[in-house]
């Protein structure tokens, strides 16, 4: 049975009526009309649906709306804007990282959460922080350059 849930997304409060077991992903996309995050697998295997829940990179495709309600949710669009970009977004543009870009939420949101806590990561630490995320176009080496560049700016 559908219930009402309060969602705070990118600093704005919303109420969504949905099954408690509906993944947060569908609330963000279908109820709030946000184009990010993306459905990639629905299995927490790829990361395309990643958002921050209280600052923690979280796969919204397997996070029930009932678990997300009442927490601070941030999507890619909440991370930064063209006017006020997150350093990772700036680095992504500078490095021209994306090919199709569909995977980008996973990499950027995961890296952003990681860089918040790791100021001067090594190449290996960055790789370990991002392991498991999928990019089918093969932009991995450009991603590494961008994350390193952003890390240098954030340090």
């Amino acid at each position, binding site marked *: 049975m559908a219930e009402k849930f309060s969602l705070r997304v990118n600093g704005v409060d919303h109420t969504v009526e*949905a*099954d408690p077991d*509906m*993944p947060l992903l*569908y609330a963000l*996309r*279908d109820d709030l*009309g946000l*184009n*990010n995050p*993306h*459905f*990639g*697998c*629905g*299995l927490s*295997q*790829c990361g*395309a649906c990643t958002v921050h829940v209280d600052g923690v990179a979280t796969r919204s495709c397997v996070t029930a709306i009932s678990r997300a309600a009442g927490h601070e949710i941030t*999507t*890619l*669009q909440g991370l*930064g*804007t*063209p006017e006020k*970009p997150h350093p990772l*977004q700036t680095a*992504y*543009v500078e490095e*021209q*990282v*994306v*090919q*199709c*870009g*569909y*995977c*980008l*939420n996973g990499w*950027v949101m995961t890296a952003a959460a990681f860089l918040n806590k790791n100021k001067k990561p090594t*190449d290996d630490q960055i*790789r*370990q922080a*991002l*392991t*498991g*995320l*999928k*990019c*089918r*176009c*093969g*932009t*991995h*080496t*450009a*991603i*590494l350059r961008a994350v390193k560049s952003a890390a240098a700016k954030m340090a």
Partner: protein
Amino acid sequence: MNANIPSSVSRRSVLQGTGALVVAFSMADTGNVMAATAGADGRPPLLPTELDSWLSIAPNGGVTVYFGKIDGGQGTDLAMAMIVAEELDVPIKNVTVVQGDTALTVNQGGASGSTGVRFAGAALRIAGAEARRQLVTRAAEKLGAAPDQLTVTDGVVSVMGNPAKKISYAELIGGGYFHSQIGWNNQYGNPLALTSPAKPKSYKDYKLVGTSPPRTDVEGKVFGTKPWVQDIRVEGMLHGRMIRPPIAGASVVSVDESSIASIPGAKVVRKGDFIGVVAPREWDAIKAAQALHVTWSQVSDPFVDQAQLYDYIRKAPVTKGDKQEKGDLDAAFAKAAKIVEADYEWPFQSHASMGPGCAVADVRPDGVTVWTGTQKPHFAAQGVAGCLGVPVEKVHAIWVTGPGSYGRNDAGDVTMDAAVMSQLVGKPVRVQYMRYEGHGWDPKAPASVHKGRAALDDKGNVLAIDFVSKGFSRLETNSTEADAGDTLAGMLLGHKGARTPAFNLPDNAYTFETKRMAWECIPAMLPGPSPLRTSHMRDPLGPQITFAHESFIDEVAFAAGADPVEFRLKYLSEPRDRAALQAAADKAGWKPGKAGARRVKRGDIVTGRGVAYSQRTNTIVAIIADVEVNTKTGALRVPRVVVAHDCGLIINPAALRRVVECNVVQGLSRSIHEEVKFDRNGVRSVDWLTYPIVDITEAPPVIDVVLLNHPEAMATGAGEATMRPLAAAINNAIFEATGTRIRRAPLTPERIRASSV
């Protein structure tokens, strides 16, 4: 072949329909774009012979280029903008590219065969040059000077030596139309070519081509402001999900609609074996697809056991073959001092796009609109027409960027599914595949076997090479969705595609005096809507054939006691092929010696270095890969890959480097991980766990890209060429490290460990 939306669909009428929403979407904040206001203001019909079909100039001087292919994120659209801007001498920032909308662009074949710059760029170069010629002619009249006395800078025509006498393109035509004809070779699709009296610039005069302005799609993607096809929402649309049979080839016997009665608004959508569900809410559609109880027909063993695959291919009947022969093969082998023989095998692979296919369709009595991520929207419009039984003139396909497509992935199939569903329910429908469909039901890259045989004399000279490939067709399902019979929905509705047998020969410039290069195609195990139907996947058959051929060439070099680079150079006379190989060797710091000479052992880790080379439609690629192999575990690390890349004229070097890099990483993935698992009933690779791809921990720390620019030569394409020799380069490096040859892809730890004994 009329592969275009005929001109009876005026641009105005299209833009008044549901298409306007999204056209406006894709052109947001581009005040210099004219397309959205065209139609009743006098724009000529959308014919290849109209110059106005290719570019227009807005009142503010902004140039719009109409690109009849699409860019999936490699910067092809930027290349088109640069090519036209170069001919017109306008700033690149003033150029906007409209692409993939069947009502606004001529069918140039969609993204296909790395022909974006090669073919579409060539056509747009002519259009740009012709537009410049006409504008300069008009300017000459206005300024009272001869055309050859005029020069153009930043879209302003002025008299040489008297810059005060000037007039801008905007003043000459801004907001109006050329109303002039351009020569056309009467072909749509990839071969479309244009001619005009105008002479394009000499490469010596290029100012913009050869520089690296940034792509225009990156910011929108990075800030989440640019829509993917998954983000298209049409008022009143339902969400659809398809139902696939548990055993490939099974038919629907009965459907228990009561099994989804408790799900709000969920309905079964069925026409014969085409079956899916719709619901107003997406999550409900997903639940309904899981809950729906369908009784399927009994089907026995549509496929062989995967363990028997290569044996099956070798024994399968040949539907069609082809060969090229030079010299007397039998005589050469009869006098051989040494004969080298080897068999190679490559598995089925999946596009496994980052997001499974998604499309939105709105089928109405007066016309059909589809929003699609397919690489070939013009052809997909034809397929939609075929699936729905409506004239193609009634179908408007709007391409919206989708998850990376590397050929005939699932983006076209889902477009048909959405269209059929919309027709059946009478409402707009958005269908998004689930992950298991993205892996399990996309058209697959063909599995194949390859047999190499070489005759050497007693000095190690090659007397003859014999190389035969045998496998499933790359066109069992066509590379376009133009024929409904080449789509899942179409096949489920009874259409049958041409199922063309097609394979390829190795592509290189080796000068072996005696040789036979041949291929043989076999029938699909299960014809029709099969999860193992085969089609084009990035560099169709290139990785398969080149993995085998270039690994085999390495075996022959080893048997001849030769250095692998030196051996290849010995049989290459074309200067550009030799230069590419030499450039890769130089950049890598290649130390000469037969395979094994560069091997270093440190504990359980042994290193090796391998080379491979090939052509692809005249683009030349030579790769040198370094590997580190753990002899105990079989774990493989690729610390460095050097690519020397010659695709003729380079338009945008920075964008090209990205394309090559991504090819290396995706190629690495296909070389070391990717293999579609299946059993007698169906495909068992249904997600990222059952179809692993490359991880960031495996991405090569160093990818050195050496670009060999030949501006005097034709641009020959870069989208796929690097993919081709990569697996062989890695395999040859593994051989150097372990001393044992692996002849089956992918190059997994199990196979490497076995080779390390």
